[in-house]
């Protein structure tokens, strides 16, 4: 009797266990070891959206789209565009473009890649009736685009024949061809529009890789890509495929790299930044990326407009020792800024007149601050707002300390708990201090770092900066059909920015990555993503 009761207890416990385990049988164990053969494993993150090119604006999904789609152009490691699907992209006036495609290309489901593949995809992304698309703003410059009403077919896009279409923009924009390698401009097969959600889960592309069968995207875990045998473009893979493993934390990814479970890692966790270069030696990379970091001082803050504002902004900039902060706080994983763009962009210059304001000079800083005080005496605390969930406290404290010591003013950081909160205050213009700002380029062009941020009324001009001279130079630059001439105008615009300092440039983020002993030929592209197709893996 007593034994029996113990038996019942055991059964009850076992039942509880079995009940829970039974619910688990759905996730059948699969092969666990690093994928064999020439399959490259790399880190990624769960895409935030179904893999529809026009609705993906984050790196997790972008990385996959770039592998499975081929656009009109692609970017090489230096960020220079080369034709991929495009045969030629021609313009006389930087406003009207004629785009010719290579013939005989197909999607992996056999559908042809033709002019309609591009025009229909772009129309889909631009039409507000299809719901808000995260990359909708890329189509703003095409003639006929509207946020306020549904435009199913943009009048600016015309199919001429199977392999030719034309694009008319609202105004001359010489960097339009540079944009065409961005995922928003990828083509879509006609079948995609039958059920775009389903397509987003099992996308059919025309790129160097394709999904390894239906359900290759295992949500929150990984996505397996295999080589697309029909792709004959310039990015032909030199390996057998790509497994992108989604990590919730960079630490987990780094642990896998150390254990040789992972081949390529393009983000080193903060905890390993000081040591990873020693550990991986010539298998580590630490080079500037297309990410510009700054803090923005809205002109509406007291003491920060007009002549007084200019003096104070320059004083603040001169009072910061960027070399020290990047070395001490970031272990050399940032590169001190020398302009408003990034060194990986074609046309970059580190010697724009006026850029001396980025050199540390405490004496001059004090002088300028005193001159500003003569116009109107400073009071209060200078604060830099940041989101506390993003690891910014270290450098904000260091920078505000330098301001405190070098200018003799009260300065401190103003943390907000979440990124969402900080961004909402910035977007609503309710923030009453300077704030952390940054820009990651969508496509490798100087204008992309300047136009959206400092043009009057531009989308991401969160400091509401406005200078007609800058606007004029930006417009002139866009109208140039010659890239070098355009870049000259953009550099001239930066000369003015160095005087006005709507944002104080701090540094460029570096790409920090490393790879295992099993792979070779790892190169990081302009957008900090390795050129996966170039990587080779020994057997």
């Amino acid at each position, binding site marked *: 009797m007593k034994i029996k009761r113990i038996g019942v207890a055991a059964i009850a416990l076992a039942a509880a266990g079995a009940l829970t385990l039974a619910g688990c049988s759905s996730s059948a164990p699969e092969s666990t070891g690093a994928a064999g053969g020439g399959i490259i494993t790399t880190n990624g993150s*769960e895409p935030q*959206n179904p893999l529809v090119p026009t609705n993906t*604006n984050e790196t997790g999904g972008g990385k996959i789209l770039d592998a499975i789609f081929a656009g009109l152009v692609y970017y090489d490691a230096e960020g220079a565009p080369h034709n991929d699907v495009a045969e030629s992209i021609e313009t006389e006036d930087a406003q009207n473009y004629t785009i010719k495609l290579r013939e005989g290309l197909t999607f992996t489901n056999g559908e042809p890649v033709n002019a309609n593949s591009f025009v229909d995809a772009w129309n889909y992304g631009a039409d507000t009736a299809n719901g808000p698309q995260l990359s909708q703003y890329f189509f*703003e410059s095409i003639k006929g685009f509207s946020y306020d009403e549904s435009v199913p077919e943009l009048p600016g896009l015309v199919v001429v024949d199977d392999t030719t279409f034309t694009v008319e923009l609202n105004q001359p924009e010489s960097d339009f061809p540079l944009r065409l390698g961005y995922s928003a401009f990828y083509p879509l097969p006609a079948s995609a529009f039958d059920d775009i959600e389903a397509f987003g889960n099992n996308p059919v592309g025309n790129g160097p890789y394709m999904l390894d069968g239906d359900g290759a995207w295992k*949500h929150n875990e990984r996505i397996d890509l295999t080589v697309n045998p029909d792709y004959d473009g310039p990015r032909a893979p030199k390996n057998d495929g790509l497994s992108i493993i*989604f*990590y919730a934390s960079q630490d*987990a990814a780094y642990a896998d790299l150390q254990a040789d479970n992972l081949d390529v890692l393009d983000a080193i966790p903060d905890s390993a930044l000081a040591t990873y270069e020693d550990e991986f030696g010539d298998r580590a990379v630490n080079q500037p990326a297309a990410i510009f970091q700054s803090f923005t001082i809205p002109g509406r803050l007291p003491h920060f407009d007009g002549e007084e504002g200019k003096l104070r902004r320059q004083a603040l900039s001169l009072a910061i020792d960027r070399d020290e902060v990047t070395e001490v706080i970031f272990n050399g994983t940032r590169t001190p800024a020398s302009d408003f763009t990034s060194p990986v962009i074609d046309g970059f210059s580190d010697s724009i007149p006026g850029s001396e304001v980025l050199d540390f000079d405490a004496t001059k800083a004090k002088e300028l601050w005193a001159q500003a005080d003569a116009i109107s005496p400073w009071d209060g605390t200078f604060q830099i707002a940041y989101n506390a969930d993003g690891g910014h406290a270290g450098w904000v404290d260091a920078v505000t300390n330098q301001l405190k010591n070098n200018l003799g003013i009260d300065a401190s950081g103003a943390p907000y708990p*979440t990124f969402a909160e900080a961004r909402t205050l910035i977007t609503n213009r309710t923030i009453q201090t300077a704030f952390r700002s940054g820009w990651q380029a969508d496509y490798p062009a100087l204008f992309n770092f300047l136009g959206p941020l400092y043009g009057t009324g531009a989308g991401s001009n969160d400091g509401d900066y406005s200078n007609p001279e800058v606007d004029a130079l930006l417009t002139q630059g866009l109208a140039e059909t010659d890239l070098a001439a355009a870049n000259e105008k953009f550099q001239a615009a930066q000369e003015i920015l160095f005087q006005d300092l709507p944002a104080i440039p701090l540094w460029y983020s570096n790409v920090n990555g490393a790879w295992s002993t099993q792979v070779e030929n790892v190169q990081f592209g302009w957008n900090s993503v390795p050129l996966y197709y170039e990587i080779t893996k020994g057997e």
Partner: protein
Amino acid sequence: MTGYIVRRLLQAIPVLLGTTFLIYFMVFAMPGDPIVALFGDKTPPPQVIEALREKYHLDQPFIVQYFLFLGGIFRGDFGTSFSGEPVSEILVRTFPVTLQLAVIAVFFEMVFGIAVGLISGLRKGGIFDASALVVSLILISLPIFVIAFVCQWLFGIQLQWFRATVGAGAPIQDLILPAIVLATISFAQIVRLTRASVIDTDGQDFVRTAASKGLSRGRIVPVHILRNSLIPVVTYLAVDFGVLMVGATVTEGIFNVPGVGNTLYQAIIRGEGPTVVSFVTVMVLIYLVVNLLVDLLYAVLDPRIRYAK
């Protein structure tokens, strides 16, 4: 007995309503617009923000959002995440993984915790007892992320006994290391709980009576001492199972387990109300069911509880 179970299940309804309401309110009250944050440092056109807010009902007052969510649940619709994936699918994908993890952890805690506690209690003051106390004290005082990182580095990277992170499909063999890490702290608690309880029971009259009747130690220990010592331990295990389901966040993050903790954390960061609340609802349900099971188990372990009902 059936009436008791039904009563307990009915009690769960107000508990569920209350918790979902509270959680929904807390997610809603989180400062900042999650839609704005979707765009990183870039500022999207106001029309796009507006359209997205409408899509996720974020333009509605809190109470309307809550009832829309609740109504959806009754229709079996848990809403969609920002990534457009139905929350029900995320639940089906992640809960089994975390349940597996929790069950393995509870298994380790139970088997080793009770065994070590029993031996310690029976040999009070001995070398085994002393070392068990010291080890459990160390385990209790170490934060779980320290244990996790050390285990990952030692067994995953240096010795390579286990994979450093959980591989595709979250196979059982990959879950063992994170489960052991999860189990460590509760293991220490259970050792101490069992030990104290065993010492207490060992001194009771009925144990002496059994011994004087001439029963062998081999019969007294499992039947008389262990069974009576298990009641506080079982209570603890039940509570702990709930804590494991929720508290696996840190461990799941470190070992990249595609489970509840990880997903819930991401959802909270993104301010995805429906996802967070659906997850918590299911967690509360599991917690309630496990507690019910444990209460039923009591009756089996201790006849007095059974007859009192």
